[in-house]
Structures are given as structure tokens and as C-alpha cells.
């Protein structure tokens, strides 16, 4: 009945990042101004998403090796929460873009790559719901998952760096680490990434356990 320590750690880290992200001194920059604080809210969504989708792929590999349907459930629920984080990342990014770049969406390589990546995972969810047979669904979606993740990583982290991009940290555009001379930003940013990732795993953990109980009930009937 005890709540696992890493869940509480995640909650404490996120609370710290939420509050200290508003209060911490920031570098004074034109255009960005106070919106640089979005670094503590928008960016951890993407980092958390990547770490959740990585967990999803690891469980897909596990399933293909051992054939345990529990691993399939874990893989699917981690992907669901990852997609949720990704959508939060897209929407918060759009608000930020409107107020700094002047438009909700630009045909920037970083943005289009992120959109394609999200569509790949929407396809994963549709693929899963379209196969009735459990074993078959687990196998097909595990293979799809294992191909999706590396492509997604290339799309959002590698390709945008090879061309010009508005997005910080891409295509000759400096990342925020270059403004963070005294590491005040890092002191909030890293806890935010770890905290949100743990919260994401917590939500996935709840969904996984719910699915396992449902599975057990179905087996009893």
C-alpha cells in the first residue's frame, strides 16, 4: 500500500521546478524576455516524452524476446503517455512560437519533424486498435515500435541540426545552455526533466496496472 519512493521523488522535483522556475533569476534577453522560463515547462515535455518512448521500445524488445503479454501492455501504455507528453510539447511550443516568432506554426524543420514523429505514434495507436488477436497485435506493434523510435530520434534530434532552424539548439542556432553562464537555468531544468519523466512513468504505471487487472478479470471469465 506504500507509494513507491520514485513517485514521490518525481512529485517533489516537479513541484520544485514549477515554483523555482517562476522565481529564479533569468538572463535578460531580447524577444524571449520572461518567456525563457518556458525552458522549465515546454522542454521537459519533450525530454520526458523521449524517455517514455525509449521505455516503450525497451518493453517491445522484451516482448519479442520472451513473448510475455505483460511486456506488450507496458510498451503500449508507456507509448500512450509519451504521446500525451508530445502533444503537450507541441501545444506549449505553439504558444511560445506565436509570442516569439510571430506565428503558431512555421515550416521549420524542427516543428515539421516533431509533427511527423507524432503522426508515427498516432499510427502506432491506430495499428494496435485495428488488430483483434492479442498475440498478433503484440508482435506487429512491437516491431513497428522498434522501428519508430530510432526514426523519431533522428527526426527530432539529428535532421533539424543539419539545416537552418529557428528553434534553439538547431541548425547553427544556439541552445539555451549558451546563455546559462552561471548554471542557474540548469539547476531548475534538469530536476524538471527528471521529475516530469518520473511523473510520466507513474501515470503509465497506473494505466499498466489497470490493464493487468482487466486482463486477469477477462481470464477468469
Amino acid at each position, binding site marked *: *500500500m506504500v*507509494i513507491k519512493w520514485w*513517485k514521490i521523488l518525481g512529485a517533489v522535483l516537479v*513541484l520544485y521546478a*514549477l*515554483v523555482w522556475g*517562476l522565481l529564479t533569476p533569468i538572463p535578460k534577453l531580447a524577444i524571449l524576455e520572461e518567456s525563457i522560463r518556458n525552458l522549465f515547462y515546454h522542454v521537459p515535455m519533450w525530454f520526458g516524452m523521449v524517455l517514455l518512448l525509449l521505455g516503450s521500445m525497451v518493453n517491445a524488445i522484451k516482448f519479442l524476446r520472451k513473448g510475455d503479454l505483460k511486456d506488450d501492455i507496458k510498451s503500449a501504455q508507456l507509448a500512450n503517455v509519451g504521446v500525451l507528453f508530445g502533444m503537450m510539447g507541441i501545444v506549449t511550443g505553439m504558444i511560445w512560437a506565436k509570442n516569439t516568432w510571430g506565428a503558431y506554426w512555421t515550416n521549420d524543420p524542427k516543428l515539421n519533424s516533431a509533427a511527423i514523429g507524432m503522426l508515427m505514434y498516432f499510427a502506432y495507436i491506430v495499428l494496435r486498435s485495428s488488430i483483434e488477436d492479442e498475440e498478433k497485435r503484440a508482435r506487429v506493434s512491437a516491431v513497428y515500435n522498434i522501428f519508430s523510435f530510432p526514426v523519431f530520434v533522428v527526426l527530432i534530434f539529428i535532421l533539424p541540426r543539419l539545416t537552418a532552424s529557428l528553434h534553439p539548439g538547431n541548425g547553427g542556432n544556439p541552445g539555451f545552455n549558451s546563455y546559462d553562464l552561471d548554471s542557474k537555468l540548469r539547476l531548475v531544468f534538469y530536476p524538471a526533466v527528471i521529475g516530469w519523466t518520473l511523473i510520466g512513468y507513474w501515470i503509465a504505471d*497506473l494505466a499498466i*496496472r489497470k490493464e493487468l*487487472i482487466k486482463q486477469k478479470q477477462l481470464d477468469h471469465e
Partner: protein
Amino acid sequence: MNSILNTMLLQAQVATEQASTHKFEVTVAVITVIFIGIVGYLISIDRKLSKLEKK
């Protein structure tokens, strides 16, 4: 010269005071309450699931 410096100093003081007393802490408190509420809800679902798992 001295009076210009004095006015600048005064302006700087007023600016810092305004920045720190715009009831910013109220928003911080509200965000804290919302997040604690959500975590509390997660904990309650977690406990209920633990009970179901024991059955």
C-alpha cells in the same frame, strides 16, 4: 550630477520593489495547490489499484 544619480537610484529601487511585490507569490501558491491536488489524486488511484491487486 548628484541629483541625476539620486533619481536613477530611486527609480531602480522602485523597479525592484515592483518586481518583487506584484502578488507574484499568489500565483506560485495557486500553482502549488493545483499540482499537489493532482498528485493527491494520483496517490489515491495508486492505493485503490494496490487494493484491487491484492484481491
